[in-house]
């Protein structure tokens, strides 16, 4: 047994990445997720419309983001639909408070705050409260659009990274490198099947969500598909990137988990973004799932059109461009003939020294 223990320690010592994950990662995750894990909503972005908008006073946790006395309920609804506020107050003879039910925890906090205010000032005019987009405040309605993104993260990052690194482990990557295939063809050939599988997965998850859990799909399929497409580009690119820096499937899984776990916990899927400590929240804005959540909930629950969604769509496109470019570069070098690690000043002969016939050339030419 002692021999086995010593052997395991020796192997572990040489697997620096696993060692780092075992020691550093738990502390890091605890700190990051400790600050992120909060359902407390301390600020609720609120707009006020109607003739008495200027006179309307808001108390914590409601925070005024815009006051528009000239606007009416339609405008207030549009503000909620476009995600510019979580609560809209329409002032008038009979005040109305509109609450965005797609922001579940914020909506619950708003209802609690309204009830508390009513208890404190029973004489004050009680506003009519309407919860929009998710009137029953059902958890499934807000989770399933986000879970669709999680499915795409799993397929896009974990499965893709395993599929590519498998080529390296079986030795077939070197075979691909010498075959008359362009790196671009190999790259696309590798990711298109995963793209197709992820698309089918997405359709199934959404279909089951709508049919089984009654989750509404109120918006445009095209806008949703555009968001899913961009999101998939990012996740598939991340999968290829991870595989290109992994020696084996075990390392690929480790890295994939490091990319997947923060997305699940910091993207706003579980904890509201506004509840995450600012020191950690910036990480959320680097994660593609954050933007996909905004798109999927916006389109499915609030029928948000493409216009107000330009920001998450743009960020996803930028992330996709960066990640795909890096993945392509890594993949290209992956498929290029490996250069000697230390050339020790070796010189490539002058072209005249190399045979001039097509397909031949100085060392390293293809």
């Amino acid at each position: 047994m002692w021999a086995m223990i010593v052997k395991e320690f020796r192997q572990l010592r040489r697997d620096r990445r696993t060692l780092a994950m075992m020691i550093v990662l738990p502390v890091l995750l605890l700190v990051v997720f400790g600050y992120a894990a909060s359902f407390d909503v301390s600020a609720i972005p609120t707009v006020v419309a109607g003739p008495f908008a200027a006179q309307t006073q808001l108390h914590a946790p409601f925070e005024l983001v815009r006051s528009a006395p000239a606007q009416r309920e339609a405008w207030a609804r549009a503000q909620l639909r476009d995600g510019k506020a979580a609560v809209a107050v329409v002032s008038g003879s009979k005040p109305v408070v509109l609450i965005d039910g797609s922001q579940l925890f914020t909506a619950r906090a708003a209802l609690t705050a309204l009830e508390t205010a009513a208890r404190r000032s029973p004489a004050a005019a009680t506003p009519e409260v309407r919860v929009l987009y998710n009137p029953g405040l059902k958890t499934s309605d807000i989770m399933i659009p986000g879970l669709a993104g999680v499915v795409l993260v799993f397929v896009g990052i974990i499965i893709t990274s395993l599929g590519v690194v498998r080529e390296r482990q079986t030795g077939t990557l070197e075979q691909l490198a010498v075959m008359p295939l362009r790196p671009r063809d190999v790259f696309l050939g590798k990711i298109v099947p995963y793209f197709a599988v992820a698309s089918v997965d997405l359709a199934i998850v959404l279909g089951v969500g709508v049919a089984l859990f009654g989750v509404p799909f109120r918006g445009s399929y095209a806008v949703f598909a555009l968001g899913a497409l961009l999101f998939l580009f990012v996740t598939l690119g991340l999968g290829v990137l991870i595989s290109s820096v992994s020696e084996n499937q075990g390392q690929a899984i480790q890295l994939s988990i490091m990319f997947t776990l923060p997305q699940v916990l910091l993207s706003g899927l579980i904890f509201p973004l506004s509840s995450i400590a600012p020191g950690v929240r910036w990480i959320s804005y680097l994660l593609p799932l954050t933007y996909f959540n905004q798109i999927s909930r916006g389109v499915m629950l609030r029928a948000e059109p493409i216009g107000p969604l330009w920001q998450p769509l743009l960020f996803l496109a930028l992330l996709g461009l960066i990640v795909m470019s890096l993945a392509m570069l890594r993949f290209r070098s992956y498929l290029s003939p490996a250069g000697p690690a230390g050339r020790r000043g070796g010189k490539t002969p002058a072209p005249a020294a190399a045979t001039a016939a097509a397909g031949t050339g100085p060392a390293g030419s293809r």
Partner: protein
Amino acid sequence: MSTAQARQADWWGTTAVCVDYGNRRALDQVTFHAPPGQVSAVVGGDGAGRTTLLRCLGGALAAGAGVVRRPARRDIGYLPAGSGTYPDLTVAENLAFRAAAYQIPAATAGERITGYLDRAGLLAARDRLAGRLSGGMRQKLGVIAAMLHRPALLVLDEPTTGIDPVSRADLWSLIARAAADGAAVVIATSYLDEAERASHVLVLDTGRELAVGTPDQIVARMPGSLRASDARPPGAAGLRSWRRDGRWRVWDPGGTTSGDGQPVRPDLQDAVTVAILAGELAGDDGAPDGLPGARHVTEGCDE
């Protein structure tokens, strides 16, 4: 260059190629020319640089210095040290992928696949997963996949290592067929009886050429004299001995004909062993090259 033109090239190979892995020199000024229509063998012990040389030839590795002369990628067939096949695809699917990658017309590919599988005794296994084939069958599949597109240069890294004699014979039948079709075949092997079948042989040791030429030339250039003895000879100065076929081979670099044992006519295995010993002796003496027949280089890769 078309495939037909590629087949008419004088040779494919390397000239004064150097490859370093970090601070370790894996190939040092290695020159090796493989003529079309013939089988050329690269032999040497562990760490000799055989795989590195073949990777350079196949296009999987860029040399640090020197010239690598090889045809376009579509005219190279390369079998890496593994079989280079997908274990989770069937034999037929592996070959279909290779045929599609090299744009072989479907009818031609089907005909060739059936023919090669038949010749290699794999026809009955065409629907079996490559991962479930025996080692020998998988190697044969790898060789068929490498030669399916009738390359001008066929590079095979140890295709016969660790497989049974019958499979080796099947593989050599495939290899000979590829050469007969006009390909320049380069094979790395640790079996010297196989190297004797080759028209050209390169003997490598720690990345350097020890001997190069036809098997007969390498044997003829062997320095010193060789005797066979039933008992291990006493450790006379300058003598080197090793076990072979149950007896002791005794090599005298000085070439004296007297001594214990009977003089023997060396074969390639003896000549290669002597080449390695001569290299060690030269190293002991601090001489740069110690074996006639090796290409003496005066310019280093560092220049």
